């Protein structure tokens, strides 16, 4: 029986599901940020649009990094695991908009990133 240890597929699955859920999460974050910023003192249309766009893009970039990391982490588990953690942190930033979907995406990326970082690449 072979003792060769395979790299886990868990980060790939978590990253893909997180990345696909990250797309609506980013849109929700943008909408929530725009909505919340209207409550601020001296809010203008420009400021609410800017807040919405900023959180939308942060969410989209996080989803994109997470998705790419999920597909490529097997080549370099440490490097792409760190990128998945970064995606988790970026999703975590959008949590200030009280968007629960971002919380799920953040958790998926963080778990995936941690598992990926603890992987040892098997010797060929």
């Amino acid at each position: 029986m072979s003792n060769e240890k395979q790299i886990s597929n868990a980060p790939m699955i978590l990253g893909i599901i997180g990345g696909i859920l990250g797309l609506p999460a980013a849109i929700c974050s943008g909408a929530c940020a725009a909505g919340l910023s209207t409550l601020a003192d001296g809010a203008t249309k420009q400021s609410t649009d800017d807040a919405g766009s900023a959180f939308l893009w942060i969410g989209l970039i996080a989803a994109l990094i997470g998705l790419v990391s999920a597909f490529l982490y097997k080549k370099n588990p440490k490097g792409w695991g760190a990128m998945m953690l970064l995606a988790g942190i970026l999703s975590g930033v959008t949590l200030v908009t009280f968007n629960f979907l971002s919380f799920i995406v953040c958790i998926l990326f963080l778990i995936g990133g941690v598992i990926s970082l603890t992987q040892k690449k098997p010797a060929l």
Partner: protein
Amino acid sequence: MVGRSPTIIFMLRYLDIGNNNFLPSYNLFVGFGIAMAMLFLQYHKPFKTRTENEKHKIHLSLIVSILLGFIGAFIFDAYSQNIALTFDNLNQIGLTFLGGLLSGLLVLVVCLKLASLPILPTLNIMATPFCIAHFFGRLGCFMAGCCFGSPTNSIVGVTFPIDSLPHNHYHELIKIHPTQLYESAFVLCLFVFLTKFKTNNQFYIYILTYSIFRFLVEFIRADDRGIVFNQNTFSPSQIISLLTVVLITALILTNKNFQKQTIKL
């Protein structure tokens, strides 16, 4: 009255996870489908026998083609619905599966060529994983209520609940063809066929049979799929399906190796 029924079927556009928090079913199913397809690919014998470098190149090609496929699906939907591609219109534009599949495939072929990988053998490896992702994607469509069919009195007819997309279209509770489930069932049968019978041209079989099936199922679709080439006879997906059948048939006829390959039982 055709298809009138008080029955409400199970359909959840958003999964309630408590405290007024929801998960979008469509995205969840699509994500799960792609994840399962990738997982299947890792244990797929023809893929496992590839070198680590080739596997990495295939993964890289897949992620690029998936991302650009999503963009292709988005642009094709905007074109067929005649919606201008502006930032303000983003929430009005959806995704067209065939547009995404074909643009993604085109990008995949280019990526495989750039990576110096054999195109057809690599696409053959991916035919069964495609079926898995496709199967879950259409289940996601059913949960979201999009891509619905025309009214029917048959036993397979289903009624979507109030405020669903079919209800908003027909303005009444009415039994309609669950075209999403037809497609899921078809792809599932195709998956079983491709895994049970070891055919050598799996990709051709997948794309050809799906195009024919899609062309036929479009006749019982009732959702707004837009217009291309200023005509109402065929839907955009039917035109794409026809072009795909012609293209694949031409490729098969010009491929001399194809006739030598047999189905292994």
